[in-house]
């Protein structure tokens, strides 16, 4: 047992954190967030050159990482800088393609950043249910597939060049890779409250070649679960990075803001609440470590660990976001301060890949299964 990251991972994390500290100030982030594309192709390219995609993808796909702890170091750093670049799809697509044995070709361009992947699994009205899929894929006359349907709130959809989509086939679920520029693909993009961008995907009789189907049947659901698990580890690590920044900046504020003649951090009622915040953050970190460690375990252990992590992050994220704003007072509500942007992202992570309630229920169900 060893709670230190390997040296390779520590080096990657250091490099990434240095790069982001230099190049990805909050002002830069706001500018990128407000831009039409919602990400910076320049920064994206540079991060690819630093090897970040390679760290998120496993060897079969040409990367050198992709394990839970690889995701953890990368996304913790991304969280600390509140990065809006389209990494989540990359973290998940690693697992989606990994099971499509021998389909490394589909990963081409992901490593050097020339291709960007989005993952579109949830549908309007389906909430967080991955099996509630009405998008249909029918065999076309040419032996390919015709996809019709729609997907809801797909993160970073507009930036994607390839979209992994779940669809219903006669034998159950299947997964397809849909090129952004295929006929019949339309995207309605919009800003998200946390500064990222998302979109609704509409597929109208989109014609795809046969080999775009990367999984089907029970396999497809298994692959989807594995990808969501990887996504939760990524989001969880991002949340941990954010939690640490929030804690530090709130402590700074408590040390410097003077009211009633003393720094407000001298007020015991606030101290004791910050102690709770600190404890909760350590518990959240442990939850993410558990999930990262379980990412390559058998399904039940993995799914219980990721659901436990999402439950923990949901509860802790809300607590810490709300407490940090409250402890800052009015200034904590202003756009000017970094804090509320971190808080907004933290809350919104709770709405991605299943919320606290969804995963609590799921954790209970898995325990019975």
């Amino acid at each position, binding site marked *: 047992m060893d709670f230190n990251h390997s040296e390779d991972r520590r080096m990657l994390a250091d490099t990434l954190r240095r790069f982001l500290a230099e190049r990805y100030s909050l002002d830069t982030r706001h500018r990128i967030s407000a831009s039409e594309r919602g990400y910076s192709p320049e920064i994206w390219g540079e991060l690819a050159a630093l090897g970040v995609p390679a760290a998120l993808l496993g060897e079969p796909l040409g990367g050198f990482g992709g394990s839970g702890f690889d995701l953890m170091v990368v996304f913790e750093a991304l969280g600390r800088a509140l990065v809006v670049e389209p990494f989540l799809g990359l973290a998940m697509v690693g697992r989606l393609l990994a099971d499509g044995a021998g389909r490394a070709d589909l990963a081409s361009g992901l490593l050097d950043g020339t291709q960007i992947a989005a993952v579109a699994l*949830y549908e*309007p*009205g389906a*909430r*967080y*249910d991955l099996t*509630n899929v009405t998008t249909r894929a029918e065999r076309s006359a040419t032996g390919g597939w015709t996809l019709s349907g729609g997907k*809801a*709130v797909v993160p970073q959809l507009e930036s994607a060049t390839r979209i992994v989509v779940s669809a219903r086939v006669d034998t159950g679920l299947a997964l397809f890779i849909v090129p952004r520029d295929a006929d019949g693909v339309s995207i*309605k993009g*919009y*800003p*998200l*409250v*946390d500064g990222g961008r*998302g979109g*609704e995907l509409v597929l109208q009789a989109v014609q795809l070649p046969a080999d775009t189907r990367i999984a089907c049947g029970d396999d497809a659901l298994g692959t989807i679960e594995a990808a969501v698990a990887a996504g939760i580890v990524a989001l969880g690590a991002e949340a941990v990075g954010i939690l640490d920044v929030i804690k530090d900046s709130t402590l700074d504020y408590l040390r410097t803001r*003077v*009211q*009633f003649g003393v720094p*407000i951090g001298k*007020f015991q*009622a*606030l101290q004791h609440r910050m102690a709770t915040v600190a404890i909760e953050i350590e518990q959240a970190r442990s939850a993410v470590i558990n999930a990262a460690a379980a990412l390559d375990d058998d399904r039940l252990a993995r799914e219980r660990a990721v659901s436990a992590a999402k439950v923990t992050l949901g509860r802790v994220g*809300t607590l810490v976001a*709300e407490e940090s*704003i*409250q402890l800052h*007072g*009015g200034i*904590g*509500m*202003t*756009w*000017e301060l970094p804090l*509320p*942007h971190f*808080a*907004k992202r933290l*809350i*919104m992570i709770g*709405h*991605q890949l299943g*919320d606290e*309630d969804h995963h*609590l*229920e799921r954790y209970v169900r898995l325990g019975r299964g």
Partner: protein
Amino acid sequence: MNVDFTAEDIAFRDEVRAFLRERLPKALSEKVRTGKHLTKEDMVGWHAILESRRWLASHWPEEWGGPGWSVVQRYIFDVEIALAHAPRIVPFGVNMLGPVLLKYGSDEQKKRWLPRILDGSDWWCQGYSEPGAGSDLANLKTQALRDGDHYVVNGQKTWTTLGKYADMIFCLVRTDPSAKKQKGISFLLIDMKTPGIEVRPIVLLDGDAEVSEVFFTDVRVPVENLVGDENLGWTYAKYLLTYERTNIAGVGASMAALDQLKEIARSEQKDGKPLAEDPQFAARLARVEIELENMKTTSLRVLAAAAHGGAPGAESSMLKIRGTEIRQEISSLARRALGPYAQPFISQALDEGFTGEAIGADYAAPIASQYFNQRKLSIFGGSNEIQREIITKTILEL
């Protein structure tokens, strides 16, 4: 003990409802219901409608234009206008300055300013907080030094809600720089058009700018604009705050928000059933509903006990804390109810005349930003921590 409304109360409630049905513009209540931004005209217009019935200043005595209602009637009125999705009465003139002038203002001041609040001539805003005086309000630094028939005001106020619309501001200023803290503070009325005043918007975390900073540079204010005695302004300030707190508690607002939350929970689907039937969500919703039911009675108990004295005292701190907790919990549940669709946020969608397509359900657009915006409830009007300090000293006597 009798906690039921009397027949007279019920008749009064029906009267209020009939008035709202007739006089509250549909387009306006629709804006409120759907969380759209209100314009100044929306708010001023609604005040005028209420005043046409002499119902704007529900807490004022009849001789100054109030309706002469009982505590219970005022409560009923507040609840009904909230449930009808009427705009909130802008409190600064009617509910904050009004009571102070009525209690501490000179006859001349009352005659001059009160009618102008009622007829909409003056939009008031509040000049209390400063960058260095938030929770520690008595630490304020804005100075007003006497110079002949004027005070010369220098300094800065902040968190001035809707300051951008204001004609007048009531300010706490330091008139005796040598006196300590609460001593040496005065309560001054300042015309916003006086030279030397500058208003700068503060952008909040949801991108909105409902609050402002107000800067004062050698602003000359006639001495007749001093309320009460020089250097005794702290007393008046505290009196005003008990009104503000009771107002923020917002039982009516919570009732309206709870109605909306229930509608959302019936409409959102989870596993093929309405979210309202999900055991976890239903339990959480029931808990906040029960708390609100309790809160209604707690509010009425506090208001009834204070009926003789006028304004509630430290008990208003209890109402403020629990009332804002309930409102925040409701907005948090609404956010959770939306699931993935809590994320999209097109801020223009909350403006009048937006013609774009809604993302997700039609009620979804403002929910997440309202959740973030309502974090302010536990901060302003004296943070909930300050309310706990008041409870500690005044009620717990620790």
